[in-house]
């Protein structure tokens, strides 16, 4: 009896397991390859042109302070609060210039802000569609009025871009939206690109930016690392980079060309098969459980009738 039961149990678990494994590893025919849309808006940041004046940071805060819930961050030595001195992207800062210095000859500025991915992880994981990607402009936007503050976007973003206001009682996520509701609407250009005095930030359509980047690489092959960061990283980004130093040294992670969101969505969709799988599982289990109940008795005719309906 006992042996029998174990074998049965094993069979069941084995079958369930095998089913899930098959589902998990099956090649997904429904998955269409990610199409890159080069008409979307983006920015090209050229680290070799950047002079580190931080005009972009200051313009970003001036323009987006109210709409984006940004505020000034004091440095510890600056008791009078004369300067805005964020040390990293934060719940008050959407864009940031940093200096990476390896030696007196080897150094580079780098700008951090949202990469506006072609296939953004944050949009893929947001449970209530507070993160969205605009179909035409490709801007990855955040809506605080639907956000529940679960911070899954922060876990998912490979660039660690979305920031949370940890110190506030009524917090929100802070990230660049290409000045969608402020400068872009008024002047057709993001504030950082508008004010950059060195021409380090170029605003435009992704196809033009890629063309420009390729021209610069061709004209000055000695000046640059021969790579456009963001052209293929994580399925491609609309904010792309040129630099004279390896990008991972500048804090931009090495990311495979496959978008992380493609991988996770593929598995989730394969398991669920458009909600058919859970319904099938429920019906099968109901069938087994009701059968088991019947084995135990015959005095419950009404309930059987009910079940058959």
């Amino acid at each position: 009896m006992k042996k029998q039961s174990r074998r049965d149990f094993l069979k069941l678990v084995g079958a369930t397991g095998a089913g899930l494994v098959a589902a998990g590893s099956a090649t997904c025919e429904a998955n269409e390859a990610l199409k890159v849309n080069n008409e979307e808006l983006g920015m090209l940041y050229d680290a070799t042109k950047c002079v580190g004046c931080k005009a972009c940071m200051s313009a970003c805060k001036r323009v987006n302070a109210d709409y984006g819930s940004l505020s000034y961050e004091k440095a510890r030595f600056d008791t009078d609060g004369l300067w805005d001195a964020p040390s990293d992207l934060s719940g008050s800062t959407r864009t940031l210039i940093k200096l990476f210095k390896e030696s007196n000859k080897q150094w580079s500025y780098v700008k951090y802000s949202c990469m506006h991915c072609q296939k953004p992880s944050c949009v893929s994981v947001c449970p209530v569609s507070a993160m969205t990607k605009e179909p035409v402009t490709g801007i990855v936007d955040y809506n605080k009025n639907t956000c529940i503050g679960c911070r899954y976007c922060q876990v998912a973003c490979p660039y660690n871009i979305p920031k949370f206001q940890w110190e506030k009682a009524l917090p929100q996520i802070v990230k660049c939206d290409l000045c969608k509701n402020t400068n872009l609407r008024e002047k057709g250009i993001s504030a950082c690109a508008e004010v950059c005095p060195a021409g380090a930030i170029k605003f435009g359509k992704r196809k033009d930016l890629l063309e420009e980047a390729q021209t610069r690489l061709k004209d000055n092959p000695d000046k640059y690392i021969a790579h456009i960061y963001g052209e293929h990283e994580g399925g491609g980004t609309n904010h792309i980079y040129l630099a004279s130093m390896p990008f991972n040294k500048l804090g931009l992670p090495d990311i495979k060309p496959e978008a992380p969101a493609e991988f996770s969505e593929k598995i989730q969709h394969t398991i669920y098969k458009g909600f058919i799988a859970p319904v099938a599982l429920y019906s099968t289990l109901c069938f087994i459980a009701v059968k088991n109940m019947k084995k135990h008795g015959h005095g419950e005719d009404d309930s059987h009738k009910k079940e058959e309906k």
Partner: protein
Amino acid sequence: MAHSEEFQKLEGRIFTKSFFILLAVVLTGFFFVGVRFVKGIGAVSNMSDGYPWGIWITYDVATGTAIACGGYAVAILVYIRNRMQYHPIIRSAILTSMFGYGLAGFSVMVDLGRPWNAYNFFVPRQWQANSAMFEVALCVMAYSTVLMIEFIPAILTSIENSKWTRMNAIRNWLHPRIAPDQKTMEDKLEMVRLGAAWLNPRLNKVLIFFIVLGITLPTMHQSSLGSLLLIASTKLHPLWHTGFLPLLFLLNCIFIGYSIAILESLISSYAFKRPFEIKELSGLAGLIPYVTVIWFSVMVGDLIYRGQLAAAFKFDFYSRYFLSDFLLVAIGSLFMFSGKLRRSPRWLFISAAMIVFGGALYRFNVYLIGFNPGKGWRYFPSFAEVMITVGIVALEILAYKVFVALFPVLPNTSHGKSHGHAPAAEPVKEAGYAGAAALNTHN
């Protein structure tokens, strides 16, 4: 109807010393919950933009719901595997599941930055089916509701058999002028009793469909708890980041579920000075190694397939945590293979505890220890953060103690003694629970 012969209330006082100690811990935790809502999450926790999920998600949600899978695992056994002899332990398993899930939901509300927007889960326009979090949230909410429905028969039985001593005591304690009339109150209470007596058998007839729902939903969201980390391909260490995360999490919660059902039963027998239910428990323990063996083969097979097996034996920080969770579960399972050790409460306790710790450590590994957002980020929970979690766990234990005293939850010991030596062949008399009309007929 022979109500609740299978289950009984625990005799004894509710307000004991341990009750007040637990209460103190709960209040401390809730003080910090208050601070969190006034001054923000940053004021009480060490979470950061690099580690946006701390122990509230890792322990209370990801691990706590696995530990609350006792009800799920035992329900599979009883209703799907048709092992009715385990029916006596199911009610306490469901009760702990109910608290486990309810309090996981509560700590999510503490953890969410903008909880007032949580209603968006019910707005179809906002649904985002690509998100594993969406799936987890809806499933956990639905499952908590199902667990409550599954527990209603215990409350109804309790109402039916109630002599209303507490109600009468309250009435007598009130000033005569505001106390309700004796006769009116008795009539009203009688109506409640009749209502419960009317509802109970009807609920029992359809209850099996809720129970099966209570098996389907955890299958979905426990695997999705693994899917949550699929997207973090650049942050989660390759030892753990695999497409098989959903399957591994599902198997993990099943063996944790069985082990925790054993632990709960042993602990409550010990704490409430009742006889150990060794027969049921050793049978349960005999099943665990089969689940863990499947878990191991998926895990190791996947590591070989991805060429990461060498990383497991590097003996660096990650490898050590990986091996710890692996060995805890493996050794615990080995003990359970032995029929002799399985019949000793002590060894049962040790091996079940090892498996629960190992399984829980696996979830910590995936959510926190193996999670590396990049250079410069550190996370270790703060005191207040830990106290909130501890307070929530204390509330769970407290509520369990109160509920087993108020409602028939624990297996009836006298019932067990009279028939108990061959539970498999024993007529199952219970009518107060779980499709029980169907069980009523062996006699």
